[in-house]
């Protein structure tokens, strides 16, 4: 876990990324993310080097109801009536009309009420995987013009406002927000997204005391161990991740997948 921690250093220059993009075949529905370094939110005051994030592919949009319907149609054990209670709570796909029936939900709305187990299994079925915290945060930290949104005026404020606003009802279709520097949409303000190691940050719920955990263990922290006290949206994401377990199937939580190069 120590490796995950540290400073954002060299980023590939834009022209280097453009050349990489030109010679790469990108899977359908995904975009290419150039390599870089993720500076962890919880890194005990910025003492550590960053997490190297190699180049990878990520879904342009969150997984939709229609896509997840195809998955459960082809994989009956992930249907609502079949899934083991170990792998999902009773709220799993609770907003669907039936096992393979979306009911009133729009096919292009992001799928929600899915557990981590189901999301992970879907990703595997697609030949992909769930993003790591570092990958997700690295992509979500991109602005509209550069890989480092923090350097763009108003970026953090915009992300905070998007993160803070209540989840719209019904959920809008995916892909309606403008893409970020990498071409990825809907990272902020639509739904929360599962990540592979969502529970690696040790947020106990008593977030003011988590700094002790941070010192005694490694990764998580509430306040004192944070590298950036102003990134409130990131605090919210880490708090949310810390509040759930892998069978959690909430109405505001979806996911997207990634593929290694």
């Amino acid at each position: 876990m120590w490796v995950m921690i540290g400073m954002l250093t060299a980023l590939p220059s834009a022209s280097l990324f453009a050349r990489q993009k030109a010679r790469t075949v990108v899977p359908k529905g995904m975009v290419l993310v150039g390599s870089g370094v993720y500076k962890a939110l919880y890194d005990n005051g910025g003492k550590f080097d960053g997490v190297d994030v190699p180049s990878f592919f990520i879904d342009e949009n969150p997984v939709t109801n229609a896509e997840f319907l195809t998955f459960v149609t082809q994989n009956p054990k992930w249907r609502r009536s079949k899934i083991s209670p170990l792998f999902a709570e009773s709220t799993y796909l609770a907003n669907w009309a039936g096992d393979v029936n979306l009911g009133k939900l729009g096919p292009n709305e992001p799928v929600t009420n899915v557990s981590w187990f189901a999301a992970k299994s879907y990703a595997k079925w697609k030949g992909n995987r769930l993003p790591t915290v570092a990958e997700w945060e690295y992509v979500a930290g991109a602005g509209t013009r550069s890989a480092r949104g923090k350097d763009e005026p108003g970026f953090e404020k915009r992300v905070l406002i998007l993160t803070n606003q209540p989840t719209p009802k019904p959920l809008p279709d995916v892909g309606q927000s403008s893409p970020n520097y990498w071409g990825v949409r809907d990272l902020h303000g639509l739904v929360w997204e599962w990540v592979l190691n969502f529970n690696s940050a040790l947020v106990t719920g008593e977030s003011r005391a988590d700094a002790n955990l941070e010192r005694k263990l490694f990764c998580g922290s509430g306040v004192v161990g944070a590298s950036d006290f102003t990134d409130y949206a990131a605090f919210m994401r880490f708090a949310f991740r810390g509040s759930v377990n892998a069978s959690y199937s909430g109405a505001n939580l979806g996911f997207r997948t990634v593929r290694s190069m």
Partner: protein
Amino acid sequence: MTHFFGSFKYSLATLTTVLILFVFPGCQSETLKGEEQAILTHAPAVPSPITRNYPTKVIIELETTEVVRRLADGVDYTFWTFGGEVPGKFIRVREGDQVEFHLNNHPDSKMPHNIDLHAVTGPGGGAASSFTAPGKGTVFSFAALNPGLYVYHCATAPVGMHIANGMYGLILVEPKEGLPPVDQEYYVMQSEFYTHGAYGEAGLQPFDMGKAILETPDYVVFNGSVGSTTGDKALTAKVGDKIRLFIGNGGPNLVSSFHVIGEIFDLVNTEGGSVQNKNVQTTLVPAGGSSIVEFTVDVPGTFIIVDHSIFRAFNKGALAMLTVTGDAVPEIYSGLQAESVYLPEGGGIQGLSGSTPNAFVAKTMDERIAEGGRIFAANCAACHQAAGQGIPGVFPPLAGSDFLMSDPARAAGAVINGLSGPIEVNGVAYNGVMPGVKLSDEQVANVLTYVMNSFGNKGTEMTPSQVANVRAGH
């Protein structure tokens, strides 16, 4: 213990009592009896006093929700709440009660929440045991060991933001002997809001982190919004009533100088604890702290409740009202005194001259009236009252006002430059000070067109060019 059991033929009940006395001498000399569901109330109501003379198991159900509600007229805010409103629901238990706390986070919530009750003895005040994802519920229990009035709040990261968005309330742990009976009990909680736009700027206002860190709020309010407890929603009492206010301060940053204009607190439980102070004018309520005040209302009238850090009261919204009805008692209060020290200035910044840029330009008289109403609510209603009725003898009425309607240009001058000294309105003499309000010509025109066409007034439209003439001294 087995020695006791083997040697003496105590009845089971006696034995239990003996054991408890033995194990917790002086700490818990009473046994828990029965179980009940706590009834919680929204401010300004307070649950009924506890009549039990024994401790019980109290079950508390509290739901966290995230809702868009009014912060001021024309201004909305996304509040995070305990129980659907700000402040959170009032909880009342008895010293020695065993509290089983159920925290339920609504499935539509976006954020996880928890609760830190200052009445709890234990890590995080319960926060460590109540971290609750949307659509989940958690349960923890605690003993109400210490009597007093305590703040509760959410303590999920980012903690400041959860509090800034409205997640606080009060829990009263009544002492074993109960509180002396009074005629009225009310729940008033102060807090501040940090919005993207300035005070009164219309629309759904997002939280502004920069202002929160600088501790420069746009709104300081009682019970969650500007005007929550004024006019029709004022606290009420009758002459002779003994009143007890349970006052909390959610912060997140500011300390309150709590004051009721025209009253002296007979008794104050300082900081919500057990020490009583007498004859107090202004009591300090810390952020994350409380105070219990008692006073008897001897004369009728409207008593203004303020944070006596006074610009908060008149420019940021920290103003509530207590309306006391009954017969006048001239030997206590003659009725001639004016409250000139506390004159409200309204939300606009006062200035000597000049105008501020204003994006809104009314195209029709209806638009002018609509916008004027908003400006009125933000700048004028604190004194002249929402229905323009004023406060007799203190703030002159606008409704049916001969002074206003007979000379609109003079009225414009009063808004621009202020007005002081003796005037007569509808045959009643006033001698106060109205400060000038820093509004643009357009805004002055809008607000005057509004007041001259509201509250039963029938008047003409005032235009920005007419206002400009007045401003230029023509």
